Structure formats: structure tokens, C-alpha cells
């Protein structure tokens, strides 16, 4: 049974978080022409687009944006195929020599991020990859750390974080879910 345990963030909280992450990215990357924002399908894609727009607006610079779909890179087939929407990856710029800001909604085991990094390397050799997520819920299984994080929510194994995005779920919010029996 999935139950909502708590509303962690609402639309306004989310807006502030994205604004803060955008500023942090700008602060950490003095050469904005070198950066490109890449979201991980599905929700990371939308979040990445929003961050791209924010940075463009703040700095008045054109920022490259792309999407990766890690289905083919995952080491677990079934879980991924259940996800409703799969589509091709979409990176229209040359990643070589760039600083890639990889964006996802929730950081959990780190396996998705590993797969996404593999995939980015199939397009070329970036100078660096930085990671930004809205929520870090812990339980890492790989040595992966965030560069930009909205909020840390140390969860128990039965607690899951659901990030809802207007374009996909109709609403902007972050929920704490209870998956226990």
C-alpha cells in the first residue's frame, strides 16, 4: 500500500529550491558557455528545462539543454519497462569539452546516475559532470554525491519520495510516501 505520509514541499517551495540551485550552478561555473543542462527522463527532463530557463534569464545567456533516457543502460530491465513513457535520448549539442550539469528529481541508490553518465559518455567526452537533484533520500549503493541539492530527506527503506511536476502530474509538490504493508 502506498500512503501519503507528509507533504514536504508545495509549489512555492519548489520554485525557491529551483531558483537557489540555479544560482549555485551559476556561482560554481564561471564560464557559462561551457555548461549544458541534461535532465534524466522523465521528471528530471522537466526540472532541467526549468533550471535552463532560469539560468538563461538570470544571466541572459543561451544555455544548452538535453535529455537522456537511461532505459538501455539500466541493469534492471523490468522496473524500467513499467515506466509509462520511454523515448529516445535527445542531446543535440557536442558534449565533448563541456561541463554537464546532470539533473534528476530524486537521488536514491545512484544506479540511474551511473547509467546516465555512461550514456553521456556514448555522446563524447565532457570535461566534467556535476549532479543536481531536488531531493536526496539516502541509501546510496554507489559512490555518487550531489553537487547541488534541494533538500536532504534521510528516509527509512519503506519511505519513498515522490516529486510531482505540473507538466506530468498536474501539480508541483514533493511528497513523502509510506510503502510499508
Amino acid at each position, binding site marked *: 500500500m502506498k500512503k501519503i505520509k507528509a507533504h514536504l514541499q508545495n509549489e512555492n517551495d519548489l520554485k525557491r529550491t529551483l531558483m537557489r540551485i540555479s544560482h549555485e550552478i551559476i556561482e560554481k561555473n564561471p564560464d557559462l558557455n561551457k555548461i549544458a543542462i541534461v535532465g534524466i527522463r522523465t521528471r528530471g527532463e522537466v526540472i532541467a528545462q526549468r533550471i535552463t530557463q532560469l539560468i538563461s534569464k538570470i544571466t541572459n545567456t543561451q544555455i544548452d539543454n538535453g535529455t537522456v*533516457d537511461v532505459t*538501455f543502460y539500466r541493469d534492471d*530491465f*523490468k522496473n524500467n519497462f513499467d515506466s509509462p513513457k*520511454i*523515448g*529516445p535520448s535527445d542531446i543535440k549539442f557536442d558534449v565533448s569539452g563541456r561541463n554537464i550539469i546532470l539533473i534528476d528529481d530524486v537521488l536514491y541508490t545512484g544506479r540511474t546516475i551511473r547509467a546516465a553518465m555512461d*550514456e553521456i559518455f*556514448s*555522446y563524447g567526452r565532457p570535461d566534467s559532470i556535476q549532479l543536481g537533484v531536488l531531493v536526496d533520500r539516502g541509501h546510496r549503493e554507489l559512490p555518487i554525491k550531489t553537487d547541488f541539492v534541494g533538500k536532504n530527506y534521510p528516509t527509512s527503506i519503506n519511505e519513498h519520495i515522490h516529486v510531482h511536476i505540473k507538466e506530468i502530474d498536474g501539480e508541483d509538490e514533493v511528497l513523502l510516501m509510506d510503502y510499508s504493508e
Partner: protein
Amino acid sequence: MSILSTKHFIGLEEATKKDIETLIDVGYMFKEVLDRPIKKVPSLTGINIANLFFENSTRTKLSFELAEKRLSADVINFSASSSSLNKGETFKDTVQNIHAMKIDGIVMRHPTPGSCLQLTKYVDSVIINAGDGSHEHPTQAMLDIMSLHEKFGSLSGLKVAIIGDILHSRVALSNIYGLNKMGAEVMLCGPAHLIPPFIEDLDVSVSHDLNEALDWADAINVLRIQRERMGIGLIPSVREYRKFFGITNKRLSALKNKIIVMHPGPMNRGVEIDSDVAEGDHAIILDQVLNGVAVRMSILYCLLGNEKDIKKNEKK
């Protein structure tokens, strides 16, 4: 369970519409992979695939091998000469050997109809039919269907004419099943004695007049005329065939609508299709080749992608 309705890929007769749609969708994703600088994904790492070719094939074999390698599968190849096969003995022996080697997937081309189905009785591996005699060649039909889908966006109501020697073709049956399931209309056009008996029962129309077929069609699939058929009196001569069934620019330019021309290859230029047609802007023959790799990746991935999960569970 695979995400398709069947464990194996024996023919489009058994496939569902949803299977075909899934394979096309996933096929597009792989097509994008084929555009990358590094055209390889790790989806089938650790999966062993054997390509068993009991009959000559260059294109299909190459396409499958490329698809397997781009998915990071481990591949072994076996080709038997047709002479050693004539007694029908090597088939079972070879297959039992393969079985003993614990292969996850088998891609097989065999001159006898039904041999792939028979194989499923002897081994546990996932079987993919790369052409069984004049029965089915489902991966070829899938790439034809994907190419049409790419060109037209949908197959619903699309008019597709298959032209040539339908009787000896393994491509025709698979195309008929697949196109019908996707809502397209199919017409067969060829000399009367090269149309299989009772084929109308499969919900297709038949014409012996090429001009009629071309007027009707949105797209045509031109089958290869096998020159060896000419020896046994089935096709009187090249010039006779070309005159009545050859696809020429003259014929195409006389049409009201611009139609799409496909060919499964290899082509007999100047017989069933002229060079300037094959290289002209009606033809999508090279798109078919690329889609062939993509859709075969899709088929392999959808059938074998979960093998790793199964293996993991066995370990646990």
C-alpha cells in the same frame, strides 16, 4: 516474461498489434542510439546469442550481428552449407550442441518452413526467426512496417502493394500478417502462377496488372525475382518480366500520387526494379536497412533484455 506477448519471435502470425507497436516504439529509441558517436548500449551485456544460418544470407546476418553487438551481447556464428543439410540431419545435432552450450538466444535462418517452431520444442533459448523457407521472415516485415510507420506516421488505412514472386517469398506472408494487424490494406500483384493458392483467405486483394496496383497503392514493396526461378520455366525471360512487372521511373512518373518504393534487397537492377528508381526519391530502401538494425535491436532487447533479471533471480 518478456514485454511481448510471446517468448519467441517466430512469425507475425502470432504477434499482436501491441507487440508490433512496442517494437516500433523501442525501435525508434534504438535508431537514436545509432545516431550517436558511440553506437552501443550495454543492455544485453552478458547475454549469449548464437546466429545459426543454415542458408546463405549476407544482409540479414550482418544486420543481426550488428544489432547484437550494438546491444553489447556476446555473439557466436554458425553457418552450415546447404549440402550438409540436405539430409536434414545436422539440424537436430547442431541444435542439441547449442542447447548444451547454454545459449540465451538463437537467431536462425533455415530453408525449411516451421524449423524455428520445431526448435522451440528442443531448446529453452529464446528463438528468433531470421527466415524459415517460404514461411515467414518476421524481422524483415518489422523493418518494412517500421519504415512505413516512419514515413506515414500511421499504417491505419494505408494501401500497400506487394509486387513480384509472392509464391516463393518469405517476406510476403509476414508482411501480410503485420500490415493487416496494423490496419493497412494489402494488395498482391504478380504473375498469376506466382501468387500462392487461396491467399485471398488472408484478407488481401490480388491483381495481375501492375498499373492497377500502382494506381491503388500508397506504398509498394518490390520483391526480388530469384533468377534461379527462371530456369524451371516459371518466368519466361527477364525482358518479359520487366515489361509487365518491372518498376520503372516511367511507370512511377505517370502516377497521380507519389508513392513510396521499398525493396528487401538484394535487388536485381533492371529486372524487378530499375536503378534510377532504387536511387530516386521514391525509394526508402536505405532507410529500410538502417531501420533493420534498429528494429532487430528492439526485438532482441524486448525478448532478451529480461534474461539478466532472470539470471539474477536464479542466483538469489
